[in-house]
């Protein structure tokens, strides 16, 4: 499998990348290349020019503060695994990242590439949704921030415009302490048939406070289980409430992806099972 002929430019700064991008409508940014290169080999993507952004230092920053965590678009998966501050404040991202593919893929894939590629089975999609990520965008014309509810438009389509670049992903609020990511992998590809990210606090009386729950892989699009979040608010987390939340949470997805191998009814049931498993991990022992 040989990709079509391409041009290649290595950008040293964000400005240089944006200027190159604005000059050529068929150009594409290249980060780790672990979605784009396979697509180019299959000729499902045929950019005229690749603008390599992987060596731009500003995209490789990791800013961890208690009120806000900002991760540069070019930060690679394995770099999300070793950071002690991140481990303390946002363990869910390491839990999700550690089950993405294998060591070699984690050495190359980036948080930004995953966000822009917008694969409906992306593990980080569940984390972005549950933690209300905000996407920091730049173009030659200016800057904007896209909230998570406006990010995923369709499978493999994010809100990013052709001439825009994702600079960083921000996780804005103080993140609840109880966090979990669980994944049921496709036995061959390893991608999520259902992955659930869940975060919440429990009050001193053990009542759920500020839950964020999201599902990737199972439905046509990654989705936030808003009904489950609302239903759990102020309730204790026990076997009954977990079962109920998992049920109504699975209902929040739209399951029209009937691929024959995994019918919609199976996928929805799997979403329910994995929702329950994620919530069980958050329950007091």
């Amino acid at each position, binding site marked *: *499998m*040989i*990709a*079509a*002929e*391409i*041009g*290649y*430019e*290595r950008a040293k700064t964000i400005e240089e990348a944006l200027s190159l991008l604005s000059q*050529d409508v068929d150009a594409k940014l*290249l980060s780790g*290349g*672990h979605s784009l*290169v*396979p697509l*180019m*080999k299959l000729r499902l993507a045929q950019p*005229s*020019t*690749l603008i*390599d952004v*992987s*060596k731009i230092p500003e995209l490789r920053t990791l800013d961890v503060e208690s009120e806000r965590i900002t991760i540069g678009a070019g930060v690679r998966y*394995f770099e999300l695994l070793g950071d002690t501050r991140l481990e303390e404040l946002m363990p869910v991202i390491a839990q999700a990242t550690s089950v993405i*593919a*294998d*060591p*070699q*893929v984690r*050495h*190359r894939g980036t948080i930004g590439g995953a966000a822009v590629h917008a694969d409906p089975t992306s593990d980080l999609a569940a984390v972005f949704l549950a933690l209300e990520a905000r996407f920091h965008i730049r173009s030659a014309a200016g800057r904007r921030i896209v909230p998570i509810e406006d990010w995923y438009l369709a499978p493999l389509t994010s809100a990013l415009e052709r001439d825009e670049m994702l600079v960083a992903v921000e996780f804005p609020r103080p993140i609840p302490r109880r966090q979990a990511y669980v994944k049921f992998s496709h036995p061959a590809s*390893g991608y999520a048939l259902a992955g659930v990210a869940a975060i919440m606090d429990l009050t001193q009386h053990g009542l759920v406070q500020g839950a964020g729950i999201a599902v990737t892989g199972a439905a046509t699009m990654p989705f936030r289980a808003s009904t489950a979040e609302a239903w759990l608010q102020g309730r204790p987390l026990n076997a009954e409430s977990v079962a109920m939340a998992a049920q109504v949470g699975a209902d929040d997805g739209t399951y029209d992806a009937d691929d024959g191998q995994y019918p919609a009814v199976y996928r929805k049931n799997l979403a329910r099972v994995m929702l329950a498993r994620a919530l069980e991990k958050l329950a007091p022992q």
Partner: protein
Amino acid sequence: MNDSKVTINLSVNGQDTTVRVPSRTLLSELLRDTLGLTGTHVGCDTSQCGVCTVWMDGLAVKSCTILAAQADQSAVVTVEGLARGITLHPVQRAFQAEHGLQCGFCTPGAMMLAAWYIQHHHETSETAIREALDGLICRCTGYENIVRSVQRALAFQQEDETPVAAGREEEVSS
């Protein structure tokens, strides 16, 4: 609008190299076809099997999923670069001692992944090693001997770090 060739400066197995290749050239193609380093094998060419694994700046990566241009200014190590002169790498000695291969097709990738593992992880449990080997598909061994080889490589590495290891090398490489 763009020149479809690119000039790349990289070091391969410690040797500085400058090449000019079509921009679409994969790192695996650069190594095998341009530089003649055919130790790196290509199995699936679809990012699945890990047989094409090499090191780029110390990290195990799949060379069929990286453009050669992305390796500019990088240090690449292939299976040809594992041994120091005639002294085999602990992983090579271990694969020999534990017979960590059958047909040998996946072995270059298996050894590069294993060598990365023992450099960064010291966990000897089968679970941890199998987790790392997730990035390699071997159609022959059922992984049993590969896991044993990695465990043995960890032991060799530890022996090498202690001064009494001298006699060991000849024993297994003969």
